């Protein structure tokens, strides 16, 4: 199958520090790829390069054959690249429903309507409510996002990505800091998404049980470089990954 997303020698340098170093990788529809690696490996930076929050020093990002390396994040979002953030990144003073409706509205292109009352666009609201329902947030729909407990904020973060209806879903530790009783809600959402074979899913995750349950493929980043790429069983049993996680990756002198 042709890749829906491809990075070619994607690199970013901060001064002398190479945070992501020539990472080339293909991602295909219907495949859930988990990106693992120790802290500081460049996972989130790699995400930022794909979704456009950071400009690449060199290399290319290609979505369905189109080079999107130089596009602004908003343009990439309209190209179908959706991104959830590791640190909760919401519209804190807006209600939960308004948060979701913004994402729905970004897709429908209604953002430029100046003289229509937002509440009369019932189609948007209905759609937003479906996503709230899926994320089990209906009961807090009218509270400001900032008033939610952490677990619900994380769910809203994921729901915001869902509501964008992208082709590429990028989750950055969606269950970070979540209590055990909330975690399944988010994992169910992602598992449901997996059933739709037209979607490409990228997931940064540390929890091994989550990785085992969801991954079709695992790639390992270490010091900004792509270290391993393959089926979960083979990557997780490989010596190189064990070394990275146990801190024995340095070459013998």
């Amino acid at each position: 199958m042709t890749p829906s997303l491809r990075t070619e020698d994607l690199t970013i340098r901060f001064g002398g520090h190479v945070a992501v170093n020539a990472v080339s990788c293909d991602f295909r529809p219907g495949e859930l790829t988990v990106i693992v690696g120790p802290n500081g490996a460049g996972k989130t930076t790699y995400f930022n390069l794909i979704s456009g929050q950071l400009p690449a020093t060199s290399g290319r990002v290609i979505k369905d054959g189109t080079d999107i390396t130089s596009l602004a994040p908003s343009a990439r979002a309209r190209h179908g690249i959706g991104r959830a953030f590791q640190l909760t990144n919401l519209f804190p003073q807006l209600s939960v429903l308004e948060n979701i409706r913004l994402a729905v509205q970004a897709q429908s292109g209604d953002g430029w309507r100046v003289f229509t009352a937002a509440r009369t666009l019932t189609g948007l609201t209905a759609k937003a409510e479906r996503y709230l329902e899926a994320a089990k947030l209906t009961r807090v729909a009218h509270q400001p996002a900032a008033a939610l407990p952490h677990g619900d904020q994380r769910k809203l973060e994921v729901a915001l990505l869902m509501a964008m209806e992208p082709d590429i879903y990028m989750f950055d530790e969606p269950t970070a800091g979540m209590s055990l009783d909330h975690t399944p809600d988010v994992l169910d959402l992602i598992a449901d998404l997996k059933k739709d074979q037209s979607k490409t899913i990228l997931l940064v995750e540390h929890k091994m049980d989550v990785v085992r349950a969801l991954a079709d493929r695992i790639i390992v980043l270490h010091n900004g470089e792509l270290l391993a790429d393959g089926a979960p069983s083979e990557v997780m049993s490989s010596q190189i990954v064990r070394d990275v996680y146990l801190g024995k990756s340095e070459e013998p002198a």
Partner: protein
Amino acid sequence: MTQDKTTGALIVKAIVLVIAAALLFAPFLFQDVRSVEVAARICIFVVLVASYDLLIGYTGIVSFAHTMFFGFGAYGAAIALKQLGNTWASIGIGAVAGIALSLVLAVAIGLLSLRVKAIFFAMITLAAASVALVLASQLSQLTGGEDGITYRTPDFFKTATKLMTDEDGKVLRIAGVRMNGKLAAYYFVFFTSLALFIVMLRITASPLGTVLKAIRENEARAEAIGYRVVSYRTFVFCITAVIASLAGTIYAIWLKYTGPDTALSFAIMIDILLMVVIGGMGTLWGAVIGAVLLVMAQYYLRDLMEVASEATANIPVLPHLLEPDRWLLWLGLIFILLVYFFPKGIAGTIMDKGART
């Protein structure tokens, strides 16, 4: 619940409704020239401050060029009325010219500099406003320089114009108020201001309004879910420039005089900032409350202090403190107290009260 469903929000809306009613009947309620002057100034500043609130309160853009756009509208009308005669057509030409100039500059400033950090943007607008002020005083053939321009408005607004007459052919009085051109001028100001305010209310309730709030709340995420933040910012900068320009035109028609002090000076910019901070940002209702309070204080605090100073004449020290000339000191103190007790402005703080979850 979010802010607009609290009991506090109802209180704020009730206050605004009372203010609107008072302004609607102002010529009948307060039958002296000065009060009507104050009422007209309030109407125009409500529009000006509300449009600034769209910028700073809704979208989070700090601009110091708002008086510049106000001035363009005022000078546009003033110059057209002076050069082309006191007709409605002149007003139309002046208003359109003011809007056109405002739009061109707003687009230029917006596209060139809304990408940079907020502080640089603020400084660029400050520079543009300074240039406009200098130009207005230097191009004295056109603008009248420091003296400004006096001109006549359409005859319809003349005090001598009789809107209604009684049997003797004299101007009719209703409840003691003369149905003359001055009254027409006040209602022209009131209804155009009301219309502009309603337009702004509609904008804030539209999908675009939600996007603007999203940009204020979290610019990066708004961009990440697909909104071109620069375009939206430039657009709202243009809309508010046009509204400020129209407010300027209305003010020029009301005053029959336009000069740097009434239309372009930084004192007006500071007034706008004070009004938006006192009233509360991001609600539009705050603009109404802020404009009313500050304009009233500017006109009546002196009088009030004169009364207070005389009343306390026998007590030591106090009369000196309450000397009318010290009104600015007291205005400053009141402002500090307001900011301390209403950190989100009067409207913003009250609207947070009575939240029910």
